[in-house]
């Protein structure tokens, strides 16, 4: 079942690549239909999901792959990966709908996005470090071509910077994985086996291995000071590319923390938690402040991603901090972190899709070039306002649930993390200011003659926002899946 979900987009991509004379309409139908089937399959996966118990996996598959280095084709899901799998399929479906009217090399773009979907799904289902690394690297390659091929502005340079920077992260990750492999006896790359073995207990070398892994994941997440590739990549990427980059690819970094770094190197994680907390707090505050200073809307959203990813780091750092706090508080923080991954994917995905409308109509993201846009484009203004409020953490949206749990857990474990709270206020301020600059006042600049949202744009961005609201109002099903897994992570980290 998992293999089917992972391979189906790849097969569809191969079909698209192999039929050079396919019409645009057929290509986009294949893309949308595959993305739709994927979403249905992923929702089916969730419907049939029964919590497998601590350390267990649902839908597990394991085949021999490279037995001589202890690596296998090992897939499985638990409460950490299942929400992200569903999120992936939803985001890609939204992208397929959003680009429905696009005419720019439809066949190649559809094939590339389907390939990208395979890498994202594979990564979240992988239970083997080499398999994880394979999908991690391929997602970078695919995103490079998305930015270089369909971006705008200085896209070649941005794509190159993205590739080099995240490739640096992936090599650091590989070095860390080799360290994990050599540390375990018998040598293995299998994630559950490594988690059970906890081979680096009391071994100071674990700190260096974790350092390599943290570097790799921190570049991908990204956190301060490894975030500099993110703003140019987002600014020059196409709207759907940005949505996938922010919605899914950034989660690969944060997911790596909970899937690999915390359970496999608990001693080192606890030792490093002050540094992780510091980086998290810095990311929150720095991301928010720099976002406040932007005049380019997409750069602004990109920096708020740095801010939002910082909350996740704070929660995960607090889970490993050496204080007297109980497991419940820490588990609340971890649950909040995973919820934040889903929530950020939905909301920022929607924000980037909406920001893409500016580029499509007016060829610029500069907020100063617009004014009074609510008059010619009331729907756009409405959607954007909803997305902005969701992003700044308004109750009734998923962001509130996530950030509330993160802070409740983190401050409970490490009271000092309260110094990150102003990040929320700054984020609120910058979104309100952006709304004011673009949408209110007299109609001026590029806002004149601005066409309002088309149905495809409304449907794609709107459905992401609806999902965010559903999670915000009925969080119980999501939390029911995440909480047992978060408990398991906390007990693994504290052993």
């Amino acid at each position, binding site marked *: 079942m998992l293999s089917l979900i992972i391979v189906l987009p790849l097969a569809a991509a191969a079909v698209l690549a192999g039929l050079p004379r396919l019409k645009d309409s057929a290509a986009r139908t294949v893309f949308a239909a595959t993305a739709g089937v994927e979403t249905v399959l992923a929702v089916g996966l969730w419907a049939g999901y029964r919590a497998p118990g601590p350390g267990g996996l649902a839908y597990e598959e394991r085949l021999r792959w*490279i037995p001589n280095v202890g*690596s296998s084709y090992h897939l499985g899901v638990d409460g950490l990966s299942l929400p992200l799998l569903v999120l992936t399929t939803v985001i890609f479906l939204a992208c397929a709908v959003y680009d429905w009217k696009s005419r720019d090399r439809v066949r190649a773009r559809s094939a590339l996005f389907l390939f990208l979907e395979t890498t994202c799904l594979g990564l979240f289902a992988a239970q083997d470090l080499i398999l994880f690394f394979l999908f991690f690297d391929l997602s970078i390659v695919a995103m490079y071509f998305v930015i270089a091929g369909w971006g705008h502005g200085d896209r070649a340079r941005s794509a190159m910077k993205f590739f080099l920077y995240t490739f640096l992260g992936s090599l650091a990750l590989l070095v860390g994985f080799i360290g994990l492999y050599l540390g375990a006896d018998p040598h293995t790359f299998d994630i559950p086996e490594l988690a059970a073995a906890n081979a680096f207990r009391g071994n100071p070398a674990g700190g260096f291995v974790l350092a390599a892994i943290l570097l790799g994941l921190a570049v991908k997440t990204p956190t301060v000071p490894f975030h500099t590739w993110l703003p140019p990549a987002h600014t020059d990427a196409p709207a759907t590319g940005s949505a996938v980059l922010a919605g899914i690819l950034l989660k690969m970094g944060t997911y790596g923390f909970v899937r690999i770094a915390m359970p496999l190197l608990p001693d080192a994680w606890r030792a490093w938690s002050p540094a992780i907390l510091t980086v998290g707090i810095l990311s929150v505050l720095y991301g928010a402040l720099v976002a406040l200073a932007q005049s380019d809307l997409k750069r602004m959203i990109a920096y708020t991603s740095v801010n939002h990813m910082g909350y996740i780091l704070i929660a995960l750092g607090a889970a490993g901090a050496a204080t007297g706090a109980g497991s419940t508080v820490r588990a609340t923080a971890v649950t909040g972190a995973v919820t934040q991954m889903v929530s950020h994917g939905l909301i920022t995905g929607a924000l980037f899709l909406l920001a893409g409308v500016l580029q499509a109509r007016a060829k610029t993201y500069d907020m100063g070039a617009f004014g009074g846009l609510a008059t010619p484009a009331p729907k756009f203004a409405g959607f954007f306002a909803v997305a902005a409020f969701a992003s700044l953490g308004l109750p009734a949206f998923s962001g509130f649930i996530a950030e509330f749990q993160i802070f409740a857990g983190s401050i409970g474990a490490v009271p000092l993390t309260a110094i990150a709270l102003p990040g929320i206020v700054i984020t609120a301020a910058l979104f309100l200011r952006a709304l004011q600059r673009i949408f209110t006042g007299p109609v001026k600049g590029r806002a004149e003659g601005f066409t309002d949202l088309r149905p495809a744009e409304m449907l794609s961005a709107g459905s992401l926002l609806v999902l965010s609201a559903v999670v915000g109002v009925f969080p119980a099903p999501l939390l029911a899946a995440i909480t047992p897994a978060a408990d398991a992570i906390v007990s693994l980290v504290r052993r």
Partner: protein
Amino acid sequence: MALQLLTEAAHSGPDPLALLPEIFLLAGAITALLTGSFLARQRQWITRVIAIVALLASAAAAVAALGAPAASVYEGSYTVDAATGGARLIVAVSALLVILLGRDELRGTDRESEHHALVLLASLGAVVLAGTSDLLVLGVAFLLASVPLYALIGMNRTRGGAEAALKTYLLGALLGIALLLGVTITYGLAGTTGYAGLASGMATAPGAAVAVGLLGIIAGLMFKAGAVPGHFWVPDAAQGAGTASAAFATTVPKVGGFIAAYRLLDAVHGTVNWPLLIAVLAALTMTLGNLAAYTQDDPRRLLGWSTVSQAGYLLMPVAVAGSVPLALPALLVYLAGYAVSNLAAFAVTAAYPDRRTLAGFQGLGSARPWHAGALVVSLLSLVGTPPTAVFLGKLTVFTAAWDGGFWWLTVIAAVNTIVSLFYYLRWIAPVFRTAGPDTPGAGDFSPRPWAARTAVGAAFLILAFGITAGLAWAALAGAPHS
């Protein structure tokens, strides 16, 4: 001498069929050469068929011998084991790809039959170099692998080709003498030329003398491997020689050089501190190759420097020979992956021989998507992106080096890999850019058919190898645990 050895093999050896893959190469070379001298220029293609048949037969014989237990033949002077089996197979498949990608370039030229004969002879030299476990045969194999190479590199009779051939010859002669000197000293110290007796024979010898002897031999083998200090000829040969010869010269000799170095150093494990020397050479080679490739604008010269950097990664398992069980499989996997990836990239340049700048490939992506795909796969494989062939090689050599205590070498190699991505991307990026009016050739891509087909075929081979090599390895070597 090698001829003598091999003809003797056919008559007097304990198992005349033990060297069947080598015999096919020799027979193919002689047949191609003789047949070629009696054929009109328009019918020289027959020699190509002979060469292909010989290589296929050699590869088939090598596959048939793969599972057999390791054996030492001819009084210990030649070893038939997993390393020799790997060398036979990699060399035969590589030479086959070279002949296929050079088909359009050489068809109907007055040097076609000689080319094929020389390719087969140099391949034989590489295999014997890899298989020998005797210092004297090592010296002979060095000559057998080198002399045809000089001729191949200079054969297209261009200025660049002549310069490259001269450079290769001078360096080969110099380091060949170093190798023979090293062989002499080592023989004098150990009292034997067989690898089996070297370590015990040199146990009481002064360390400095042992080091000088080994140093000379390693210097000679680094010429074959294209690694520091014997790397100077590689970029010139890659740029100046004919495409097929360049592809051959940057691939097949390495197979012989690295496996020979591995075998020798494995035999003298524990004598002097050679692992550190090899590790330093590895770090120097990969760094130098990568930095020099940085600024190249000719794709062939870029590939030449890239093969130097790849030689650095290939030295990593050699540095831990004898102390890490993973070293030999890592070396073989990397060699196989590297050979097919490098040849795929050369095949793309062979398909468009007139495009000698990176910018000349602008627009290839939209004009010839399959060829662009083959180029991307081969270059990403050289970077080491999964699931391509070199990824498995990189994973295993990184692991082997760290396991042998050289964690710093693994870190240097990882940093070098990031650096290498930069110049490979300099080639990938224009491929997907739209061709402008100032593009050389203006985006009119009419490929040479066989070279292009070889490129696409090799690209599929890269992916197939990368995905299935782990299982094949387990089937051949036996999995350590389920």
